């Protein structure tokens, strides 16, 4: 028979005032399996804890019930206490006779009765307690950062600076991300390239950072400290080691295509670097559009002309598998395509463009080399209408959320317009001006007051071409009247939306997304960079629209989390996790279905000769958080949560049901 010790705390008068602790302790002594029971003024005090330790020794107690305050307060204290006396810490149960009893009831008799019941339940549960042990989980101190935009670069640099290895994976041929496309940044009007390029170079030259561009994550398995990741390095067709970045190949390449980097406003070749400051400065062949690949090896100009014989058409996709201790997702966003706004003429009139296209038009390295001209006739525009909330805050065409940055870049564009074309006039149609960052509101005021941008609160109903002009019809809700503007150019502040493959990556990582496919954080307030899967963190706009300062701040936050994780020697698994009874599991996979952490896998049982017998569920202890949702789902009780097994909880129910 188990030997349970019951220790009833007075908590000074906090408990003793409404619970007859002496009588309760005496009655508890008669509960089945109780070998010793006593009361004391302050169980959590040093003499109180010594009393427990002595009783364990003297009465050969193997399980302890402390009836005192909430376990949420002192469970760690008493676990430590009994483990110092040689018991497994999980042999402790606490009966909460303070918060749940003495503090909420007045009648001493009633409260004493309840206290005894709570103790009886704890005793019954304690009898079924088992010694639990945490396991040491090895830790690979190397991080994987997915996405080479400003957030990803920042994460990589911070982790690398702390002395840990980082692999930075970027889908496109160069790191830099969206920020590389921008001209200037609000509200300081720093040149984006001037602040980003050094970081790109730092990352490229950092001894702890390995950059893989033109590469994608293919497969992720494992768990915190022990992820195994397969990365597909797409065939670049140019030998990274041989290429000097001279650029002759793309000068001579005969095939011209619209440039993604310039949002289709400029052109690139079939062999290309996306932009001049690209890191690495090594071209890549777009095999789908390359004549050599399309015509069965007929062209081959680039290979012939390359002075260092770096062009190699035979290169193939390469799969690299490595172990990582932590993963940071920094995959960013994509600008929303405003085509659904048919009334605004996007795609129909060449001078109706998106904000990102506008950005490229006055970028010195852009298709016009920084000259702001209309795409249609290459004349500088005079009247430019900026329209906010294109696809944001709009359930009907786009998304209900606010994209957060558009108000600010609209202000930036309106201001820069005036700087580039002195006699130009900016009109901004807006719903609300959301300028809630450091220096943001001042910046907007400056645009309006110093640069004369005309802000019109209202929506645009229609844009149509009239000769060379674009007629913008809208409403000024503040003036309460319709407005019509003869514009030379219309710029649509398109929403930010999740990357098209965000859901796939989420699935691969086993993390969740919200209804718009943004990655879900573990807690909106308290765990904004964590996700529910341990060892995976978020940085930047892959979580939700963010501007550069926010993205960088979160990146450093994510890096700090990774560094904190890597600072440990090894990881300790939580002992209170689920376990599968392989004898009775029938592999219906309901547990797997309900697990919030993808902690349950299917494994094949084999006989001694290694032949498969059948499949069952198995718990990855590194991923399991111990919620027990799987346990309640399992029909054959084949999965159990240590510390909260069915028989433990049933014992509590029975102890109460049959309490005398």
């Amino acid at each position, binding site marked *: 028979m188990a*030997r349970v010790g019951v220790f009833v705390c007075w908590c000074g008068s906090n408990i003793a005032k409404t619970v007859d602790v002496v009588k309760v302790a005496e009655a508890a002594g*008669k509960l*089945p399996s109780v070998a010793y029971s006593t009361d004391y003024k302050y169980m959590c005090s040093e003499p109180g804890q010594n009393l427990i330790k002595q009783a364990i020794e003297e009465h050969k107690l193997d399980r302890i019930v402390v009836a005192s305050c909430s376990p949420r307060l002192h469970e760690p204290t008493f676990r430590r206490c009994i483990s110092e006396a040689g018991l497994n810490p999980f042999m402790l149960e606490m009966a909460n006779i303070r918060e749940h009893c003495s503090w909420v009831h007045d009648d001493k008799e009633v409260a004493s009765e309840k206290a005894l019941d709570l103790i009886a339940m704890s005793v*019954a549960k304690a009898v079924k307690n088992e010694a639990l042990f945490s396991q040491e989980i090895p830790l690979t101190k190397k991080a994987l950062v997915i996405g080479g935009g400003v957030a990803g670069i920042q994460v990589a640099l911070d982790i690398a600076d702390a002395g840990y290895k980082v692999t930075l994976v970027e889908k496109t041929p160069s790191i830099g991300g969206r920020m590389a496309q921008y001209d200037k940044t609000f509200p300081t009007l720093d040149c984006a390239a001037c602040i980003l390029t050094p970081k790109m170079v730092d990352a490229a030259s950092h001894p702890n950072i390995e950059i893989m561009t033109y590469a994608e994550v293919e497969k992720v398995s494992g768990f915190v400290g022990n992820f195994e990741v397969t990365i597909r390095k797409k065939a670049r067709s140019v030998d990274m080691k041989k290429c000097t970045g001279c650029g002759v190949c793309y000068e001579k390449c005969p095939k011209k295509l619209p440039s993604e980097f310039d949002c289709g406003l400029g052109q690139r070749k079939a062999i290309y670097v996306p932009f001049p400051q690209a890191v690495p400065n090594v071209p890549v062949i777009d095999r789908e559009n390359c004549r050599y690949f399309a015509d069965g090896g007929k062209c081959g100009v680039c290979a012939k002309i390359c002075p260092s014989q770096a062009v190699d058409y035979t290169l193939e996709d390469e799969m690299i598998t490595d172990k990582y201790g932590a993963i940071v997702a920094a995959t960013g966003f994509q600008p929303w395509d405003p085509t659904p706004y048919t009334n605004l003429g996007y795609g129909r009139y060449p001078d109706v463009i998106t904000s990102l296209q506008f950005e490229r038009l006055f970028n010195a390295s852009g298709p016009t080399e920084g000259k702001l001209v209309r795409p249609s006739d290459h004349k500088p525009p005079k009247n430019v209408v900026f329209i906010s909330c294109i696809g944001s805050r709009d359930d009907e065409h786009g998304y209900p959320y606010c994209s957060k940055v558009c108000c600010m870049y609209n202000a930036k564009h309106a201001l820069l317009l005036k700087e580039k074309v002195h006699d130009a006039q900016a009109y901004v149609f807006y719903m609300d001006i959301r300028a809630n960052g450091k220096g943001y509101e001042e910046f907007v005021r400056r645009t309006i007051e110093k640069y004369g941008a005309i802000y019109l609160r209202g929506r645009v109903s229609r844009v149509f071409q009239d000769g060379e002009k674009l007629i913008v019809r809208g409403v000024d809700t503040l003036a309460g009247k319709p407005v019509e503007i003869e514009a030379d150019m219309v710029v649509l502040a398109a929403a930010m939306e999740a990357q098209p493959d965000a859901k796939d990556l989420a699935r691969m990582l086993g993390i969740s997304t919200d209804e718009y496919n943004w990655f879900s954080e573990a807690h909106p307030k308290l765990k904004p960079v964590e996700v529910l899967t341990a060892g995976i963190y978020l940085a930047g706009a892959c979580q939700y629209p963010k501007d550069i300062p926010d993205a960088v701040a979160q990146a450093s936050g994510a890096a700090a989390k990774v560094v904190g994780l890597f600072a440990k020697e090894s990881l300790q698994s939580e002992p209170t996790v689920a376990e599968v009874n392989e004898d009775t599991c029938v592999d219906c996979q309901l547990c797997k279905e309900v697990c919030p952490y993808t902690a349950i896998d299917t494994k094949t049982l084999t006989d001694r000769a290694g032949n498969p017998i059948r499949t069952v569920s198995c718990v990855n202890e590194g991923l399991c958080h111990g919620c027990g949702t799987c346990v309640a789902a399992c029909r054959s009780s084949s999965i159990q949560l240590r510390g909260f097994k069915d028989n433990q909880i049933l014992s509590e129910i029975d102890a109460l049901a049959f309490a*005398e």
Partner: protein
Amino acid sequence: MEAKVIAKSDIGAWMKGLADKCDVIAPVKDGDVSAFKKIEDFGTLSIDLPTPTVKGLREQFTPETETLFEYKLTGQQAELTSDTAAQKDRLIFGVRACDAAALKYTDAVNANCEPKDALYFAKRKQTTLVGVCCTTPAWSCFCTEIGDFLANPIMMDLYLTDIGDKYYAEALTPKGETLIGASQFQAATDADKQAAESAKQKVIAALPSPIDHAEKGKDFDWDDPMFTKLAEKCLACGACTFLCPTCHCFDIQECAQGSKGSRYRCWDTCQFEKFTLMGHGHNPRPSKNERTRQRVFHKFKYSPERYGILGCVGCGRCITACPVNIDIQRVVHKLEADK
């Protein structure tokens, strides 16, 4: 022994008279099925004789759940608290010849061990059995193939045969003689006796002829391929064995409820996978093959060898109850043909 007659209309009054001295139990309709129940109201006597009771007499002598002892825990101390209350004498009315015959078998099983099953024999001793000859056997009945107890009943005290508006009542034991001493019984005429005889013969004629199963069972083939076929379709439920009047296997379980608890026994069956599962994980009857064979062999081969009696009385309950139409009569015939 003596025989009398009793008018059907007097049965209620007779039973009412008996009820002063003992519990009177008889088959009554309970929803879709018929079951033995204690009769409380002798006015609107709703005894159901044509439908066989869904269960035989097994539960009357070894209840589905039976407490063996009780205990109480105080701290580290345990104390036995059982007191077995004395049971009232009982009379069971409307017993079929097959069900009574089954008691010969269960008596043998329960006596064939030391100590003898006291709980069982206490109940046997306290029970008087009044049988009734069947008039409309079920489609699955084959008792006549097993023995002649329909004509020459055993293990009961009184045997009633329906002869129109009255029963011909044969006392088979001194207890039976006492019973027919009651005022409701009248002397039987020769015509009554003949009517009873022809009523019995009429039923027997509709049932199969006798077969010496005990003899034939000796040569059953342990490896008969039929068991693979049966095992394929058997669902491994316990309907057959739980309704069988001769099945007697039980499990012993513990019921712990807070500081109190009890040990009880409850029906178990060789058809359940766990029945023969041992503590260390080995199961000598690991598949339905072995388990379907066990049921048939136990009744038709092992029992005659061990007790000299067949473990089947041909009541046909397992046949009607089987959800997949496993028909033990057919199975045995096939085994006998296969040998």
